[in-house]
């Protein structure tokens, strides 16, 4: 429990640092930064390895936690008629299993809302697009932002394998046919000689808009349906972070004690750092969707 718990604490710090980008950089710049970061997190081999360690840690922490709780319940088959546990221990310390189970419920919904949609689901995931206003054009143009930093107009491009951008050859042929009609004499490229499906690049999954849409922003233009349950989602998120805070309030310093680290000089500091961690980390996690929600 202690080792996996402490590892998951480091995971929380990493995850929080990633999330903070959602509010610290704004506009198209911020959106790019976040989606690039998300791409890096899902493609870098070292991060991939780390993510598997995280999955295993979470699973082990859950299974071990349930097993220990069952053993502990068995150790006292008959309870006390009158018990005053508040006289000698904190609420958080006595309810780690309940808090952990609540976090597990949150984790399930959290992964279904974000992780599943972005990484597992076979449903089409909207890609990062932005609007440009060409000086002479009548209307603004929607562009894809690609991994190589290119801008590719949305029109005439089809998406394959989730993120790969290809020329829509049918539309291209139609356009050529139109041009042929308009200028009968002009020499036009022979379509049969061309690669009909040239890959133009790879787009970014627009996780930034997914998050903003989830917490109430209208991102229907980006392909995310408006979430009418945004406030409920926000409240659930904030409460879950409160639960996480209580879990960490006891868990952080408890992990050190379990590993045998107890020292007259260091333990008071470990406890203080643990309390700070328990307030700061879930607090900042909760602040991000609050900021997103009120700026909608």
């Amino acid at each position: 429990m202690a080792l996996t718990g402490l590892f998951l604490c480091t995971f929380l710090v990493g995850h929080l640092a990633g999330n903070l980008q959602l509010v610290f950089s704004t506009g198209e710049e911020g959106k790019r930064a976040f989606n690039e970061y998300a791409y890096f997190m899902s493609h870098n081999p070292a991060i991939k390895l780390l993510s598997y360690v995280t999955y295993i840690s979470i699973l082990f922490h859950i299974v071990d936690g349930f097993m220990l709780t069952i053993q502990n319940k068995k150790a006292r088959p008959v309870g006390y008629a009158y018990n005053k546990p508040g006289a000698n221990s904190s609420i958080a310390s006595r309810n780690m299993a309940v808090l952990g189970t609540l976090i597990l419920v949150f984790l399930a919904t959290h992964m279904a809302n974000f992780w599943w949609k972005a990484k597992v689901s076979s449903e089409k995931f909207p890609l990062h697009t932005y609007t440009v206003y060409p000086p002479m054009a009548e209307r603004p143009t929607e562009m894809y932002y690609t991994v190589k930093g290119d801008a590719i107009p949305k029109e005439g491009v089809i998406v394959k394998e989730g993120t790969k951008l290809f020329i829509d050859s049918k539309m291209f042929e139609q356009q050529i046919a139109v041009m042929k009609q308009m200028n009968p004499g002009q020499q036009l490229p022979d379509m049969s000689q061309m690669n009909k499906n040239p890959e133009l690049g790879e787009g970014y999954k627009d996780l930034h808009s997914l998050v903003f849409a989830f917490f109430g922003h209208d991102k229907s233009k980006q392909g995310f349906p408006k979430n009418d349950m945004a406030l409920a989602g926000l409240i659930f998120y904030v409460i879950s972070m409160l639960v996480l805070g209580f879990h960490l309030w006891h868990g952080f310093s408890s992990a050190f004690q379990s590993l045998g680290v107890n020292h007259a000089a260091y333990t008071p500091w470990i406890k203080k750092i643990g309390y700070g961690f328990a307030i700061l980390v879930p607090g900042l996690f909760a602040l991000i969707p609050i900021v997103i929600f009120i700026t909608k």
Partner: protein
Amino acid sequence: MATKFININLKIWRQKNANAKGSLESYKLDKVSTDSSFLEMLDQLNEQLINEQKESIAFDHDCREGICGMCSLYINGRAHGPDTGTTTCQLHMRKFNDGDTIYVEPWRSRAFPIIKDLVVDRSAFDRIQQAGGFVSVNTSGRTMDANAIPIPKADADKAFEAAACIGCGACVATCKNGSALLFVGAKVSQYALLPQGKVEAQERVVNMVRQMDEEGFGNCTNTGACEIECPKGISLENIARMNREFLFAAAKSE
């Protein structure tokens, strides 16, 4: 402090034997001196019960000066009652008010089965001790004077603090998990800190922990309740030391 007399109501766990189904029984006891100890109050109640031709209440006690570890009792939701740093025999009736209802229950743990009423079988602790709570020394012929080995004062003090454990079982009784780690931690520590205990340190911690698990005690979740309820003020530091000893021993074992 002038002696006062109070009238109290008691709810006491009665159970005929290990297999019988017990229940909380109500008793009324008048004219209890606030100078009497909690156990003397129970003596008074037993006299009353004997006079009424009823069966007296069985409870553990021996030295009645807080050193033997025999007395137990979960009083008003706390091990050894509302005071900290005391055993039940050191708890006085001046801590209670006239008209109070006092709940008295036995230690509750799978590893401490009830023998009768408030008496529980704590021999699980003896078996844990037997599994490793000793040092092997040559007792025949030319024995060595224990004081001939220099020991740093700080280590000696810590070992002594750990050895203050009287094995009453309050740690198990108060722990929400029924864990015996404070007891085992104290017993492991008192030897681990001293040079005489180093020889068997590795197998000691492994064997004692194994026996502890076999007895059916729960796991430690570091709530810290045991440290607060321990009549001898045994520190959680001893549990950490035991964890440390165990981790190293487990890593080194073949």
